[in-house]
């Protein structure tokens, strides 16, 4: 019997009733492992596209930094290392709690999972608040992208190198990088809340924690991008 059309009936007949037990197993998957692996693979492919999305900004950064190194040094002195460093630690901590949320979920600890997700969301909000203060200062100082770049001497950091005329390019890149990253943080908060609600409903278990896992992957990526943004923008 060499045909797929006829070979299928006998071999898989015994499977037909067995493999659709759990409610969370979607109809088109055969086993939980297949569903989990597909989700993880899909998420990693998605993360690859996220990294390529950011890569454009990094290339622009590389080209302009190489063309105007002094301008980048001067402009970076206007950024607040302390605020940036604090934000880095906040994000790293949120990444840690996200990893712990996945761990709790893997162990079936629903309450702990919820708490870790809440801490992660809280850290994300702290990150945005600090970012808000940084942005406000830039707006007051006139350190704005391209056409809007009009520095006000009284708001600039004292003792920093003078800003060349084309410093607007740096702030274009700065605002695009941190802005696009910030949008990712906001989206992250959204999906974390969604996961928190689902966790509260008791949808996750030792056997099924895939959504927690992939949302945490996304959150780690947001952290990952910031790990590079912080030294490249603040610590030149």
């Amino acid at each position, binding site marked *: 019997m060499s045909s797929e059309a006829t070979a299928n009936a006998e071999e898989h007949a015994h499977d037909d009733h067995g*493999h659709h037990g759990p409610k969370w197993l979607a109809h088109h998957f*055969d*086993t*939980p*492992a*297949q569903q*989990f*692996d597909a989700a*993880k*693979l899909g998420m*990693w*492919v998605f*993360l*690859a596209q996220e*990294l*390529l999305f950011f*890569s*454009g900004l*990094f*290339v622009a950064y*590389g*080209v302009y930094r*190489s*063309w*105007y*190194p*002094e301008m980048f040094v001067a402009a970076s002195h206007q950024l607040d*290392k302390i605020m940036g*460093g604090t934000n*880095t*630690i906040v994000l*790293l*901590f949120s*990444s*840690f709690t*996200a*990893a*712990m949320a996945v*761990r709790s979920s*893997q*162990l079936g600890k629903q309450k702990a999972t919820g708490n870790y997700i809440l801490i992660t969301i809280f850290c994300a909000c702290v990150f945005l608040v600090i970012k808000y203060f940084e942005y406000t200062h830039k707006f007051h100082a006139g350190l704005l992208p391209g056409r809007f770049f009009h520095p006000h001497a009284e708001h600039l950091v004292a003792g920093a190198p003078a800003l060349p*005329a*084309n410093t*607007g390019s740096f702030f274009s890149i700065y605002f695009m990088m941190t802005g696009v990253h910030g949008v990712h943080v906001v989206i992250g908060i959204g999906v974390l809340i969604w996961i928190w609600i689902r966790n509260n409903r008791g949808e996750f278990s030792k*056997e*099924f924690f895939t959504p927690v*896992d992939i949302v*945490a*992957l996304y959150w*780690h990526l947001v*952290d*990952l991008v910031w*790990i*590079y943004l*912080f*030294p*490249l923008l*603040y*610590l*030149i």
Partner: protein
Amino acid sequence: MASQTSLHPHKDDGAVHAHISSSAFYVAVFMALIALTVLTVGQSYVDLGRLNLIVVILIATTKASLVVSFFMHLRYDNKFNALIFISCIFFIGVFFAYTMNDTERRGELDGDQNVRVLPKTGEDAPGGFVPHAASSGGEHGAAPTGSGAAPAHH
């Protein structure tokens, strides 16, 4: 570390087998990340010249590898997922390398080719065209950098 079961699909039972690290391990990774952050901030007060950028990238990459390997479980994950990640880094590298192969070396051969307008400086080379009087005010006067299309090298 707790159990070392791999995430590879087991067709035999069809259940999910994921690696679970211990809390202490996650705490250790987190502390390492904080230490590296402090290190990179501290380093920024020391001028290493050209090495600055390299050190900064190295520290950031170490941190990123910790996050990717352990927080994101890539160390224990399906090998293909790691391949996706690595190939994505490769393509970003291609993007960087090729673009900067142009931007870093643009105009280097202009002199040899007897180019009349030097893109490097935006100036007219000897024997070049006489700039149009009307366009010099409207087109180029507003440029804040005054360096025209191709930025000057420093």
